[in-house]
C-alpha cells in the first residue's frame, strides 16, 4: 500500500537556523497521525513545509506515491488542505462566510458551488443562517467551523491540522474535535494533526511522533501513551505535564 503521505529526511532551514533536521514519517491512507512537541520543536514547520508554506531545503515529500517538486499545483491543493490554529487570524475580516467559501471554488473552477457550500456548512453544523455573516459576528468555535468548511469544500483526502483547537475554550474544543472525527469517518480522510496537548493527540490519533528542536524524539502508538510505554525522558515529561499541577 502506498502511503498517503511520505516524508523522507525533510530539512527546513531559515537563514542559518535549521528548523527541521531530517525528519521522516509515513501516514497511511485513512490514518490519523499526530505531531506533539513544545513551541519551536518544528511540528508546525513540518506541516507548513508539506503545504508549501515553508522552504524545503532537502529531503522529499510524497503524496500518494507522487513526489512533490518545489511548487505545488492546483491538483495538490484539491487533495491536501490545511486548518490553522487561530480562527481569528485565518479568516478574511471583510469577507462573508459565503465569499470565503466561494474563493477556493472559484480558484479551482468548481461548477456546483451552491450545493457544495450548503453541504459544507451543514456538515460543520452551521446551517444557512451563517452564510452571510462576517467573521467578527461569529464566536471562536464557529469561526473554526468555517475554517474547516473551507478546507472541506474542495473535497480533499488529506487534512493538515495545525493546533485546530488550542485557541478555543475546553467546552468548544470538545465540539470541534467531535466534528473533526465525524468528517474524517464520513469522508475517509487522512489527518496529520499538530498539537502541544498530548491528551488531544491521543484522543484523535492512532499513531504519533514526539518532536523536539526540529528532530523526532520518538514514534509511538496512542495505546503506548495510555499504558505509559514511553522510552524517552522528554516524552515522560510531557506526559507528566499533561496531568496538571501537583503541589510539591
Amino acid at each position, binding site marked *: 500500500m502506498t502511503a498517503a503521505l511520505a516524508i523522507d529526511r525533510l530539512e527546513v532551514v531559515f537563514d542559518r537556523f535549521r528548523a527541521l533536521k531530517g525528519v521522516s514519517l509515513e501516514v497511511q491512507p485513512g490514518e490519523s497521525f499526530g505531531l506533539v512537541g513544545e513551541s519551536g520543536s518544528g511540528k508546525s514547520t513540518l506541516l507548513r513545509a508539506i503545504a508549501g508554506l515553508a522552504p524545503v531545503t532537502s529531503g522529499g515529500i510524497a503524496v500518494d506515491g507522487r513526489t512533490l517538486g518545489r511548487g505545488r499545483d492546483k491538483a495538490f491543493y484539491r487533495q491536501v488542505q490545511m486548518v490553522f490554529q487561530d480562527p481569528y487570524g485565518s479568516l478574511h475580516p471583510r469577507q462573508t462566510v459565503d465569499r470565503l467559501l466561494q474563493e477556493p471554488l472559484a480558484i479551482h473552477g468548481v461548477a456546483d458551488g451552491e450545493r457544495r457550500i450548503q453541504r459544507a456548512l451543514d456538515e460543520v453544523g452551521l446551517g444557512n443562517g451563517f452564510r452571510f455573516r462576517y467573521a467578527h459576528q461569529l464566536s471562536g468555535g464557529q469561526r473554526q467551523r468555517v475554517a474547516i468548511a473551507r478546507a472541506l469544500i474542495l473535497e480533499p483526502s488529506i487534512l493538515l491540522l495545525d493546533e485546530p483547537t488550542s485557541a478555543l475554550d475546553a467546552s468548544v474544543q470538545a465540539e470541534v474535535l467531535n466534528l473533526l472525527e465525524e468528517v474524517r469517518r464520513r469522508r475517509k480522510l487522512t489527518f496529520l494533526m499538530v498539537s502541544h496537548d498530548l491528551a488531544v493527540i491521543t484522543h484523535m490519533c492512532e499513531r504519533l511522533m514526539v518532536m523536539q528542536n526540529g528532530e523526532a524524539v520518538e514514534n509511538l502508538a496512542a495505546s503506548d501513551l495510555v499504558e505509559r510505554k514511553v522510552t524517552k525522558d522528554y516524552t515522560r515529561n510531557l506526559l507528566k505535564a499533561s496531568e496538571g*499541577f501537583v503541589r510539591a
Partner: protein
Amino acid sequence: MSTLLDVEDLRVTYPTRTGVIEAVRGVSFQLGRERLGIVGESGSGKSQTGRAIMGLTPPQAQVSAKKLAFDGIDLMAASPRERRALRGNRIAMILQDPKYSLDPVMSIGRQIVETLRAHERVSKAEARERALAMLEAVQIRDPARVFDLHPHEVSGGMGQRAMIAMMLIAGPELMIADEPTSALDVTVQLDVLKILDKLVAERGMGLIFISHDLRLVSSFCDRVIVMYAGKVVEQIKASELRNAQHPYTLGLLDCMPRIDADRHPLPVLDRKPEWAA
C-alpha cells in the same frame, strides 16, 4: 480568616447601540489569604470581574456593587487617585500573554524598576538590586543578562516570569492572575505555576486565578468559583470538585480529552437557558 477582598453583587454593564450588555451580573464572594480560582468560558464575565476589582474597566462601562472592599477600603467610593495608588502596589495583575502585556520598547529590567519606583521612594541602585533579586526569585538563571534584554528577545515562559517579577516587586497583598499560563507550553506552564505557588505561599498573598481550564485551576487553587453568563453558578472547594452539583461544572470537567479514557465522541455541554437565568 481575615477577609482581604469582599465583593457583593458586582455588576459590569456595557452600553451599546443595540442595548445594554450585562457582562457581570451580580457576583459575590469573599477572599482571604487563599488561592481562589474563577473558571468559565469566554464571555462568562470572569475577566471582567478581575478587571473591575483592579479598576481597569473601560470608561464607557458601568460598574456597580453593593460592596466592593479591599482590606476595608471601599473601592467604589475611592477616587481614581486612590485606586491608582493601590494598583500595582497592593493589588497586582498578571495578564495572559507576555508578548502583549510587556512594553516592547523598554528593557525588562527598566520595566520592573519603573513599577517599583512608581510606588516606593528608592534609589536607582537599590531599585536595580531589588529587581535583580526578584528576577532571581522567579528562577531566571542569569538575572543580570535578562535585566537588559527586551521582551522580544526572551521566550514566552521567560517573559511571563518577568511579568510575575514585575507584579511582585511592590509586594502586593492581592494578586489577580488572568489566564497566566494559557499562552505557554504545557511543561513551561507547570514551571510558572510552581513559581507562582511558592511566592504566593511564602508571602501570604491572596490570589485570584482566572482560567478556562477547570482541571488546572482545581489542581492549583483552594476554592473555585464557576461562572456562566456573568453569574456564579457554583462555589466549591477544589478538593470537593468531584462532588460538584451544577451540570455546567460537571460538563466542564467532563469535556476534556483524557489520555487514559477512550471516549468517542467527547461529551459536550448541553447549555440550558435556565443556567443563565
